[in-house]
């Protein structure tokens, strides 16, 4: 029984980078936390702005979006005081949103939020006071992480990693997902057993492979795929997982959760 010779997912060693790094945006929970942290940081920026009568966002036009005529890249709007409770503070809103779920914002929202935060801060912070910009510096870390990690989705992966060895691992992960979907356990997923030709991964050694003729369990899949973790670097392992996720969208979340997300 090949699968039983493999390590359980929990027994696999962790990479040093694993606790914090997520180059391909695979950790859904980490992305959600980033969205929440973004909201908290923005509230800390919007509170002093409101105190000065400045709003962070701009009025929406008839189309429901900010109009180009308003020159959003260098303008701010004023606030009108009568629009809500006078005691609306960052702490209060933050605590009230404690149980509201957050999903990572899309690319357009990320760009818009940073633009608004920067222009609003520039309008309210004293000139040249670097200490006033710590919040925005943290904000670009959270928003930048979500934006750039999403760069490597299936459509852009090939272009982004052209001539880069990571493309091989991305394809390898996708190939493993295809095998698993057909009920095949490779049993010896190891880079040396595969080749790369014209942008496609080819199997060089399938000696340990086995066609089970049934649907594989998530644990079986995780044990088979997890073998790769022992032989590749962190970024390569993440590329494998990304390829696996792109090929097997339904099964991947549970499999990858067993492998640590």
């Amino acid at each position, binding site marked *: 029984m090949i699968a039983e010779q493999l390590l359980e997912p929990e027994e696999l060693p962790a990479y040093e*980078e694993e606790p*914090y*790094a*997520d*180059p391909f945006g695979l950790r859904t929970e980490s992305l959600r936390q980033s969205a929440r942290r*973004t*909201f908290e940081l*923005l*509230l800390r920026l*919007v509170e002093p702005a*409101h105190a000065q009568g400045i*709003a962070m*966002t701009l009025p929406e036009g*008839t189309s429901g979006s*900010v109009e180009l005529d*308003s*020159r959003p*890249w*260098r*303008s*701010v*709007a*004023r*606030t*009108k005081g*009568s*629009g*809500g409770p*006078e*005691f*609306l503070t960052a702490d209060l*809103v933050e605590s009230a*949103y404690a149980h*509201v779920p*957050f999903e*990572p914002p899309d690319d357009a*929202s990320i*760009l*818009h*939020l*940073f*633009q608004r935060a*920067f*222009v609003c801060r*520039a309008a309210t*912070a004293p*000139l*040249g006071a670097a200490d006033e*910009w710590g919040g925005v510096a943290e904000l*670009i*870390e959270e*928003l*930048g*992480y979500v*934006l*750039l990690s999403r*760069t*490597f989705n299936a459509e852009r992966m090939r272009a982004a990693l052209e001539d880069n060895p990571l493309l091989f691992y991305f394809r390898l992960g996708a190939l493993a997902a295809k095998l698993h979907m057909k009920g095949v356990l490779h049993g010896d997923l190891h880079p040396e057993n595969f080749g790369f030709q014209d942008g496609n991964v080819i199997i060089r050694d399938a000696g340990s492979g086995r066609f089970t003729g049934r649907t594989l369990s998530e644990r079986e899949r995780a044990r088979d795929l997890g073998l790769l973790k022992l032989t590749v670097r962190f*970024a390569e392992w*993440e590329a494998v997982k990304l390829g696996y996720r792109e090929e097997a969208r339904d099964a991947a979340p549970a499999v990858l959760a067993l492998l640590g997300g």
Partner: protein
Amino acid sequence: MDTVTGSLVDATLRAVLLGHDLDVAGWQSVAERLRTYPIGALHPDADQTRETEALRALCELVIPGTTRGAPEHRATDGLPGPLPHLIDALAASSRAASGDASATLAQAQAMYALVPFLPDGRRDAMERIIAVAQKGIGASARVDPASVAFFVLLANVLAQAFAVTEHLGAAFALRQHLSGHEPSMPVLVATSNLVTTAKLLAEVHAETPEPWWREANSLALSICDDEHAVARWTPHARVAREVIWQAAISALTTRLLLCKHQDAAGQIALVQRDFERVRHLAHELDDPDKTARLEALEVEVRELTGGNVAEQSAATVRSVAGSLDALVEQVVATTQRARALAAESEREQAIAQQTRELYGSLQGLLGKMVETLGMNHHVSRIFLALGAMASGRLADTAHEAVRACLLYSPPTQQRSGFYGSRQEGCASFELESACFGTMRALAVLHDLLASEGALYRAFIGLLRSENRDLLASAARFLHVMRPDESFVLQVEDVARIATFTGARPAQDPMTAVARAGEDAACSQAGAPADAIADAAAVISARQRAESSAELPARKWIPDPGSNRSRPEDLVGTTGRLDGVPHRIDSILGRGREKIVLGLVNLVTGKQFALAFFHEDERRALHGYLEGLVSGEVPYDPTEVIARCDAVLNSYPGDEVAAFNKAMALDGEGNVAGAQRWFEVACAANPSDVQNLLFNAHALVRLGARRRAVALAAQSKNQNRTAFHAFYQRFDAHRALMAKTIGEVLREEPDNADALALAQSGDEPA
């Protein structure tokens, strides 16, 4: 009576414009009749009382002392025909007799407005007007930009329409009066007119036109630059951009002329720059005519400079690429040297020095980009890439991620404001390339250090502090604008931020933020006592309001002047609830069907909440418009706009609301705003002649003559009878459109729409 009055008005027109003698006896007869009954016969659709008053005023001016009891304040605005301008011209003329320069200029301006009413004497009238204007200019100690714009316009019209070029020199000399003025609409218009003057002077001096082209180019460029963005913030932003577009076109066309006459090689970069500016403005203005003009100019630019421009661009790319590679090589070498060092602190120091050098370059480059482009999405991506590296979450993939992020270009269907702002970015290729190269080097450094443990952590710490300093530094270069008319409610602001950030509250985000603030205030131990009391009142009120559906309906009658269509404007207003005086103190919550307001009983001082259900906005507007038509309600443009906005918020394409808002804005002099809403009305009902023709006339006033003529032709094709009825009713519009058709035909003799209107013999041509 009609004939007598009409011919006397015509006689006065000729007296004012051409210096003909007036039939004083006839006017005395008119004045006599005015004492006994109103006339109101010139224009059956006009306000008869106002027209009578206007004629009385004219009598008074023509034969002082002939009328009795003429009102001091004469509202002539909006009266059709030449009457209002005649009165202005005669009144200014009597003031100018005492040597008042501004009155003389006002007289000339009123006279100019009369020209369309005297088509058979246009040239003589123009000669007379420029003589009056010259007198006014000569008498002025300091000529203001609006007067410069006017005089230059007169000189240009005389030269273009009647080949009278003798005033061009005097007009061009007036440019000295523009220096030292802040950018404003009059300065923009005056400069734009002077560009035309310079081009006309180039035609006059056909043997040595180059100095004049250079002048035209220089003047045009002076109002194309972004420093004049301030002017674009005026209520006439669209008009200003149209003027700037004309200037940019002038700059480019004169540059092309210079290229053809002089050494083209020396002008290539400037042609490219001028063309990029035109391209950018065309995208901003998003007008099919301008796009067509852009394409035509692109062909011309390519024909003239194509090979050279391509060669120069390639040389720049080669040069920049070389320096980028050198930067990456330097970073690799530094990392290798650092790794060879024994002490941890020395390694950190070497990497820190290299990092600071890269950030030093970025500081200058990003400062310039932020100053030139603002914080557009393109520049935002650079900062977000820096943030992503400092987050330490990219492992050793930063190089690919940063490259993909910075080189990202949106798909065609997503190009909107982002695309427009990218155009500016593309115009500064070398600046962007240098920035991209520095970012690439920084990303390579990041990836080389990603597996270095403590050294990487120190590097990340440095990135964070450098990012903070870089942001502070870049902010100093951002010229933030704060338009006065732009407002956002605080609660709305926070709700939007929550939505953009990805918050998924169970209810409407706006209500969620308002309620969350109230709930949190109540449960916050350290919150101010009054805040807690307020919150308690709010929550108690909300509970009552939520059960209000079960309570009998109560009657709320707003006090006079307290009826507002926007909820936020209700705060502070008063009214009677079941006959008892109350004041609305706050908005406690909003929902799809109702709004909950905090009320104070002005008799007892008791506070409570009341839910108001939204009236269907369309029905409310229609009721209001019926009131206007029947005369029960006085016409108040502010109220009309507010009521139309209430409908447009829910139904952005509503034809009735869009049209009436446009009319109200037009009445207030906001032509650009009006035109935008006429556009919406046209989109909602493109076969309506009123929509098309009012839009056309707004476009004429904005300078978009070709499109205006196209719309007029379209409306005529739609319904010839309605088209004629429109121009029979609106005299001034007819004259203006006829003038516009003529201008379009002069510029483009084969313009099909203008020809269709002009050659049919129908009105307005």
